[in-house]
């Protein structure tokens, strides 16, 4: 029988627009869809709209960063003039834009001037890391 009511635990997305319960310590609810509703996460019954169907307004593409060199190579490979406007419009890294593509930037929380790659990725303690994101506890007081 599908669970109902409020869910509390780790969350995942299945790539299809469903937010799902993903807490191994709760095998009875693992994989069932949930949705944000009035400050909580509730199980979605069969036939009800998914989390994304309830809240979606716009898409935000997660896009790669492309510098002049990679665009030049790609353009020539497909027979496009690398100096054409079409090719130039593909560049989204360089000249002050997306400079993190080339090197970790000084305003980055993980910037470390002394590190070889200018990066010192910080780690959270497991107990904290498990709940500060990807978990229903992370979003208790926010949302619509």
């Amino acid at each position, binding site marked *: 029988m599908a669970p109902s009511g409020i869910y509390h635990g*780790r*969350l*995942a*997305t*299945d*790539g*299809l*627009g469903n*937010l*799902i319960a*993903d807490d*191994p310590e709760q095998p009875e609810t693992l994989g069932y869809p949930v949705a944000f509703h009035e400050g909580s996460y509730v199980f979605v019954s069969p036939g009800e709209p998914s*989390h*994304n169907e*309830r*809240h*979606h*307004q*716009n*898409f*935000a*593409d*997660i*896009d*790669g*960063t492309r510098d002049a*060199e*990679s665009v030049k*190579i790609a353009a*020539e*490979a497909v027979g496009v003039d690398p100096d054409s406007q079409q090719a130039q419009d593909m560049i*989204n*890294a360089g000249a002050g834009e997306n400079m*993190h*593509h080339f090197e*970790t930037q000084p305003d*980055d*929380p993980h*910037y470390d001037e002394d590190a070889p*790659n*200018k*990066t010192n*990725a*910080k*780690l*959270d*303690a*497991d107990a904290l*890391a*498990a*709940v*500060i*994101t*990807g*978990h229903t506890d*992370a*979003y208790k007081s*926010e*949302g*619509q």
Partner: protein
Amino acid sequence: MEYALSPVGILVPQKRLIRATSPLVPCPPIEEIFQDIPKALKEYFGTLLLKPLKERIQVLMAGSLAFTLSKALQDVPWGATAFSLTNTTIYFGLWAAAIDDTLAGNTASECAYTSYARMGLTNNTTIFATGSGTTTYTKTFPSDATKSWATSTGTGTNNTVTYMGILNGNAGTTADKGYAWCTITSTTINNGDTPQLAVNAVTVVQD
């Protein structure tokens, strides 16, 4: 060619032991295939050969395999150790700060807009289709369709994302081992936005 005198008095080419002068890097005799590849690709190979070894291995993404995956891959052929990072689901996360080869499930500054959760994709050849190429092997994914993260229902924290990390788990702790990471275009996820990954948006190249 240098020559030496054999024990029976015949002049023979002098044999020398082959000694390693660099790390072992399997490489085809590239000049033999130059006639078959276009000019742009030749220039690309030229650029690659001038780069440090690490950048040659992962150069088309501004990213890399994580240490844990690199180790697991090496252990398979050398010692016939079973691949240690298998998982039926591979998780894609977004970060608002630099991540690198040390990526793990508890790496700080992971995106936390309201309702954010890592995107879990079933680890099969429908989504991660067989790649192409021989001298350079390229995998692109997701192979079947655009994939979506959960729609944002509030700003939360770390909602301007600049890096994407791929892991083998979703515990959010050190139990999740890093597969790979890359830079992405700086993107702010606002309330009502659904982050999505286009078909074949991710390319991983290995020579």
